[in-house]
């Protein structure tokens, strides 16, 4: 009888599962310490990114930047014979990045004594859920891409750290929306744009960026004609662009990424007679040509790094990345590489300090906080007390014949 045998099988499965769990010491933390503890002085670097679903392309290229840095460091060798082992978990559930899964992953890293530092997450709301947990556990966390102000600034950040108010465990090499938005507004005024129509994708990054841009652009004497938000997954922007075309703005500013709408909007602008109107966005759209093709030409965008052409490490990084992964870098690959460099440098310094032995999480955290002018593909990196990059530089680029062309750069601080 089917049902009987099902019962038997399942009952038999229970002790088996226990045995399995015992063997792998702790199955839920899939790659946990005891059984799979790597030989020698291995140190794990936990990585939490969206690796499946809608964000997986950016998630993957971010992951690749991290993996490249780890591979290069292992090849070069670290003090105390330490080897680095990446341990990546996906925080997308059912194809959507999930703060809930992000926290589950962070707890997995925390429960694994081999993990000394965590890289990620990709999304700001995932970070907002993770920070209280990593803060309480004292696990350092470096993000390559989160931009929401509240993660590091003001009362919001304080609230996130209330378990352990004196310690900051969250760092990021990406620039806050407020810094980038302000810089973008200044660039736009320098380009002589007087009137702007703002669109954003109604997501964390895009909405905040657009709001800051709106505020600063107005302060600098520009006129904001309108500000619209779009729905997720929209493919048809003709209604919105018809509406905008009637207002004849000098500039359309887009808060968001290429995949949330920048590419399609740029492309459909031509269909609505807005082909010659300037289009501008933040560091979510350097890859706009992958969607808009030749129509991407003339797009302006900002990147939170000094002029890449002048930066040797940036050119080297791009060459190494393309050789290793046979594809162009993603929007946050360089950031990811830099974030990983910070983690590795901290592990190395902490190991030295610890007399060549594998350091503790606290020692690594202390070293990360002390990071100062570390040379990376996005310029020298150091952190302020809140975990943000010191004296970041924001550069303005435009696209000509499908290639980025540097225009100018400015240093922004609070």
């Amino acid at each position, binding site marked *: 009888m089917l049902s009987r045998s099902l019962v038997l099988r399942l009952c038999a499965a229970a002790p088996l599962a226990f045995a399995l*769990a015992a063997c792998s010491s702790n199955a839920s933390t899939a790659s946990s310490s005891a059984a799979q503890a790597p030989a020698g002085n291995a140190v794990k670097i936990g990585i939490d990114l969206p690796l499946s679903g809608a964000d997986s392309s950016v998630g993957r290229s971010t992951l690749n930047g991290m993996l490249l840095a780890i591979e290069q460091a292992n090849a070069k060798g670290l003090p105390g014979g330490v080897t680095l082992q990446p341990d990546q978990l996906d925080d997308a559930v*059912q194809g959507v990045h999930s703060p809930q899964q992000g926290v*589950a992953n962070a707890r997995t890293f925390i429960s694994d004594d081999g993990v000394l530092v965590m890289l990620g997450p990709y999304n700001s709301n995932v970070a907002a859920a993770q920070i209280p947990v990593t803060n309480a556990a004292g696990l350092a966390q470096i993000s390559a891409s989160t931009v929401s102000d509240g993660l590091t600034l003001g009362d919001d950040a304080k609230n996130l750290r209330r378990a352990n108010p004196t310690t900051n465990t969250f760092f990021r090499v990406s620039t806050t929306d407020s810094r980038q938005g302000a810089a973008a507004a200044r660039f736009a005024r320098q380009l002589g744009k007087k009137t702007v129509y703002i669109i954003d994708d109604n997501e964390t990054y895009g909405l905040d960026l657009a709001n800051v841009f709106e505020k600063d652009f107005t302060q600098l004497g520009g006129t904001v004609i309108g500000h619209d938000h779009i729905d997720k997954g929209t493919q048809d922007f003709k209604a919105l662009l018809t509406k905008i075309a009637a207002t004849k703005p000098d500039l359309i500013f887009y808060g968001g990424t290429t995949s949330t709408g920048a590419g399609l909007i740029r492309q459909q602008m031509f269909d609505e007679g807005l082909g010659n109107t300037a289009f501008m966005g933040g560091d979510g759209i350097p890859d706009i040509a992958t969607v808009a093709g030749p129509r991407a030409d003339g797009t302006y965008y900002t990147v939170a790094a000094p002029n890449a052409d002048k930066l040797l490490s940036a050119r080297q990084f791009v060459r190494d990345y393309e050789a290793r992964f046979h594809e162009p870098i993603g929007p946050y690959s360089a950031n990811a590489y830099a974030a990983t460099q910070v983690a590795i440098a901290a592990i190395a310094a902490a190991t030295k300090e610890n007399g060549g032995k594998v350091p503790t999480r606290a020692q690594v955290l202390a070293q990360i906080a002390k990071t100062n002018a570390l040379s990376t593909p996005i310029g020298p990196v150091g952190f302020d007390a809140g975990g943000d990059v010191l004296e970041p530089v924001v550069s303005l680029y435009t696209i000509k014949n499908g290639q980025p062309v540097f225009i100018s750069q400015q240093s922004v601080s609070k």
Partner: protein
Amino acid sequence: MVYAIAAIVIAFAVAIDRVRTKRTKLLLLAGLAVLLAVAPRLGGSDASVNALVDIGIYVVLALGLNVVVGFAGLLDLGYAAFFAIGAYTYAMLASPQFGLHLPFWVLLFLAAALASLFGIVLGAPTLRLRGDYLAIVTLGFGEIVPQVFQNLTKYTGGPNGIGALDVPTFFGIPFGQSALPYYYVTLAAIALTLLLTNNLRASRLGRAWMAIREDQLAAAHAGIDTTRSKLAAFALGASFSGFAGVIFAAKLSLVSPDLFQFQVSVLVVSMLVLGGMGNIPGVVVGAVLLGLLNGTVLPQLDTIATDVLHVHADLTQASFLIYGVILVGLMLFRPEGLLPDRERRAEMHAAPNEVV
């Protein structure tokens, strides 16, 4: 540990489903309860306890939706909306957002009440619709609610959501960052949900739902107010969802609209169908299996591939594909679910001439 506990729960659920006497059922249930209560003491990291809480919340959700879909036969594809309403209730009334800090325990029940109120507001005008039309209306509602939370930035934090929610306290002792207190809260919530839904199933109202599911017209002729009974199912189901939403939000300390998308509703419906709609042990099995798959197995696919199968594969990219194949495979293999209730088992084995 997560796998072990999941296997134990499933084994017990199957056993409870199979034994006939009520006394044995209760004994098994008590045994399971004791096991689960001491489980975290027997080792297991904070991460595994956390994973169990996530699964446990799905169990509450699935049991709640079972009232609507399993008992009353109303297809609800927007169940996540009520989950969102519960979670946002906690987020707005127990956080720095408005400076309100109502206690967790009060909000648990307030959220349940609010969610059921929304259930009534949506259900009252729409419940007389035919099955599939109701499905699409609930689906639409499920799309609207998170979108409204996303758009009303001033009150809900927009796409960022609301973070740094209050940490609940138990007689003055804060829960802290450990997942353990939530484990026990969730366990209690599951127990309560089991008790209530089991009562419902065997009650006057539960019988009325069965009648409506089988033949609405005949049910009405037996004096059953079909609209009110359906509304009761809808409101009760919603209240469990709202209740679960509070625990979810408090543990995560954050709410944001992307946590309550269509996929969540689909996931919970899949749990019911996979486990066996209407049958409480079946629903628990479905929730545990899919909860485990989604929260633990799929995110760790790459590591599992390396550690267990000793292949270096990049499986995470295909996690959705794997999930889809599992759904389709299980439906083809056992369309009535793993542990169907009596009626549905009979239905599947009836001659196919009975096209309903």
